[in-house]
């Protein structure tokens, strides 16, 4: 098993309060260790990281990287692949695709940037098999997937009737059945209405047939989540996404879970951290940029980030990721079918290709290619909002950096987003190339803040891990953590935020990416291709309750197009599965 010493590097490990101190990192048998015996030292691989930045391996908590809609994006866009081709090497596969890369290319591209862990943002239960098939074929990354449950017939019925226990038992069964990691809620109550060509536009509007409101769904799922003690909180894609003025409903949506106490009951070994590694939030808002719009129409459209950021600054139960817009081609894909239709209509000349799918009793989905142009006033404002959402929230432990890949932009553009966060000059340079609405209709031009490497480490690994409940082994370098490390060619002593091209270069190709104590990528080259782990939750609930729920499930299963026996994801779909027992008798005792 890999044993390693990373010497003399400047270490940024926020969960352990380490801010650029020059210390050695030890890895024994793939796990971070306090130190090594002389026998271990003798056989250890040594990396000299003098003058370099050492961080825990990158963790992406929200990206669309596996499953049916991702593959729909690949299929509908041959033009996305022709110019973006990766040749195979002796150890790696060929691949193609810019905004929606093939699974292999995706794994290699993340890894060469220093990322070791990526979570799929939306797995419809019926598409769980497809999602697991793609995750199984994605090399180098540890992964998991959030289950889309915000418009699920069974849950809408239980939540409307106030049957929280049954709802919890159903969720527990679904997590085990589909090998899923967390609860994702997309446009609650609205996607069900989309089956009838409608949507919901407020929190208290009952939807068709189920007569459940978005508020009831958000509150109910958050309560279920904490009753079970899931690693990640409710992950919310709020209502009215992509509509001018939606910052208000976003604020209201976040307020719904204000009284819900976060409570992780996980049967895991917790690696050592100086900070409390448990999450503090009861709601994790996805891609805030798309839900922080101001104005009332596209004519008076402006950033609503300040309104939302002000709320987040006051709230202690919220974490957001930003969903940055770094410009260029994107492929919008979401479980929010109506939002994709709205974008299709907005995109102007008809005939643009797009797709929409109704996922039976569960949810929906849509995909549309979209290009963000610097000269376009709306794109320029969206760029500004994406950065404001991180820069205006004072506490970095409430924020996570994403592009909502590939919705706002592509994950390979993360280095560019980091440069904007770290360098005011980088922002000004881009603003000068943008439509003037970028700065005129946002507060970004007046923002002085330049993030430090420590803060970037919070936004890209430490808080990401803590928010999704992976800090027991990811996102830090405390003893017992996975030996996942990224070394970047940045000397903090000489770091100059004005030289933003250098930031982009350094974060684009990690000098070393180390996974479980093994060097997997070196200066942009893949040098080893391990298989990653697949995390999912196995929540324990009362068996009698589960039996009752199964009666309901079987009663309505006649509405599905598949047989009950074909519904679950078989074990063989997962390579290196890591089930996390949740709410077991011991875990319930141990919970905070």
């Amino acid at each position, binding site marked *: 098993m890999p044993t390693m010493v990373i010497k003399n590097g400047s270490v940024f490990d926020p969960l352990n309060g380490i801010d650029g101190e020059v210390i050695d990192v030890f890895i024994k048998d793939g796990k971070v260790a306090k130190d090594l015996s002389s026998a271990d030292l003798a056989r250890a691989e040594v990396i000299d990281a003098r003058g370099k930045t050492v961080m825990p391996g990158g963790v992406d908590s929200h990206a669309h990287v596996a499953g049916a809609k991702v593959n729909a994006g690949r299929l*509908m*866009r*041959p*033009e*996305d692949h022709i110019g973006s081709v990766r040749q195979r090497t002796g150890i790696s596969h060929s691949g193609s695709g810019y905004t929606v890369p093939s699974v292999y290319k995706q794994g290699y591209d993340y890894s060469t940037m220093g990322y070791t862990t990526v979570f799929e943002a939306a797995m419809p239960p019926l598409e769980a098999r497809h999602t697991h098939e793609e995750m199984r074929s994605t090399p180098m990354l540890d992964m998991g997937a959030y289950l889309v449950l915000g418009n699920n017939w069974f849950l809408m019925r239980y939540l409307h009737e106030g049957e929280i226990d049954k709802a919890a038992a159903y969720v527990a069964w679904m997590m085990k059945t589909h090998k899923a990691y967390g609860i994702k809620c997309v446009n609650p109550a609205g996607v069900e209405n989309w089956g009838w060509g409608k949507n919901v536009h407020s929190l208290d509007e009952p939807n068709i047939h189920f007569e459940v409101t978005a508020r009831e769904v958000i509150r109910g799922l958050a309560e279920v989540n904490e009753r079970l003690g899931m690693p990640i909180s409710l992950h919310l894609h709020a209502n009215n996404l992509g509509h001018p003025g939606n910052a208000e409903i976003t604020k209201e949506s976040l307020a719904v879970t204000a009284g819900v106490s976060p409570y992780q009951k996980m049967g895991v070994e917790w690696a050592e951290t100086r900070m409390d590694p448990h999450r503090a939030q009861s709601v994790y808002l996805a891609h805030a940029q798309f839900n922080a719009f101001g104005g009332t129409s596209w004519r008076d459209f402006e950033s609503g980030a300040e309104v939302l950021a002000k709320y987040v600054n006051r709230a202690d139960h919220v974490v957001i990721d930003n969903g940055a817009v770094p410009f260029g081609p994107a492929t919008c894909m979401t479980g929010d079918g109506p939002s994709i239709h709205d974008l299709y209509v907005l995109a102007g*000349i*008809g*005939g643009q290709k797009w797709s929409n799918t109704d996922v039976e009793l569960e949810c929906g989905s849509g995909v549309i290619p979209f290009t963000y142009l610097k000269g376009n006033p709306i794109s320029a404002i969206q760029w500004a909002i994406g950065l404001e959402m991180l820069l205006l929230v004072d506490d970095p432990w409430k924020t996570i950096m994403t592009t909502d890949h590939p919705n706002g932009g592509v994950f390979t553009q993360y280095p560019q987003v980091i440069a904007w966060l770290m360098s005011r000059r980088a922002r000004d340079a881009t603003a000068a190339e943008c439509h003037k609405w970028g700065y005129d209709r946002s507060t970004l031009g007046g923002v002085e803040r330049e993030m430090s490497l420590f803060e970037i480490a919070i936004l890209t690994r430490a808080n990401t891990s803590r928010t999704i409940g992976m800090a027991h082994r990811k996102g830090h370098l405390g003893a017992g953590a996975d030996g996942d490390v990224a070394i970047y060619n940045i000397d903090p002593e000489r770091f100059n935020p004005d030289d933003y091209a250098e930031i982009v270069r350094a974060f684009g190709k990690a000098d070393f990416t180390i996974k479980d104590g093994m060097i997997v990528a070196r200066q942009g080259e893949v040098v080893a291709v391990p298989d990653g782990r697949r995390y999912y939750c196995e929540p324990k609930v009362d068996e009698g309750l589960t039996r009752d729920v199964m009666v309901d499930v079987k009663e309505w299963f006649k509405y599905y197009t598949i047989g009950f026996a074909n519904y679950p994801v078989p074990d063989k779909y997962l390579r290196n599965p890591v089930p996390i027992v949740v709410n077991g008798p011991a875990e319930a005792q141990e919970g905070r």
Partner: protein
Amino acid sequence: MIVLIRKIRLTPKGEIDIMVEAEIISPDSFAGKSEAELCELSVWQGPRQVPLGEFFEVEAWDEETTGDGDGTVDILIDGDASRIKRIGQRMTSGRIEILGSAGMHLGSEMAGGEILVRRDAGPWAGMNMSGGLLEVFGDVGDHAGSAYRGSWRGMSGGNILVRGNARSQVGGGMSGGEILVQGSVENFCGIRQSGGLIVVEGDAVRGVGAEMIGGSIAVLGEIHQFTPGFVAAGTERDPALGEGKVEGEFAKFLGDYAISKNPKGVLFVKEAVV
């Protein structure tokens, strides 16, 4: 003025089994290379990389001539190249002449220079072309001067001249440049066109100008099935298109209203045919 032209002759050695991907056959990549170096340039054939010299006898020499264009690379393929793909892809200058036929993707994404094919060319000739001249004496396959699959940003400049027939989707997504087909075309000629000119001297089957929002198409022969989203807009004599190639009395149509409320696409059809 005396100038030096670099002449290169590729003589096919025999039948080719699996098609060869030879974007390397281009004046840009041949420039400054000796015979031996040219032979060693590698091309893909299925899963293996093979030196160009395996498929062609290669001769190269410099020739003095009068005129301009010092250092121009002039490539002659002295035989059939119908199983060679991507000849002249992305070329920016120089000249390629093929005495036989050319395979798929001939001159795709070409930005300058000249390609002349004495017989036929396969599908995707001049795909996404932005400049230069592509002339085919025989027929071309589908998608001549069209956008790549999935995209509607096609040919933006340059000229394609087809002396024979073209098949479907000529000039799909075209935004600039000119295509002249002296024979007939099949389906969806000028689909999604937004600029530029397509002239078809023969007939078209159907779907001419479907979803076009700009640019011009003139069909001198018959259109078997007219595209429904076009609206009559009077007649014109000798419409000013291209370089005076279009003469006579024409019915003018605007479209395609199926895709836009205010389309700027113009379709001319011989009055006598209407």
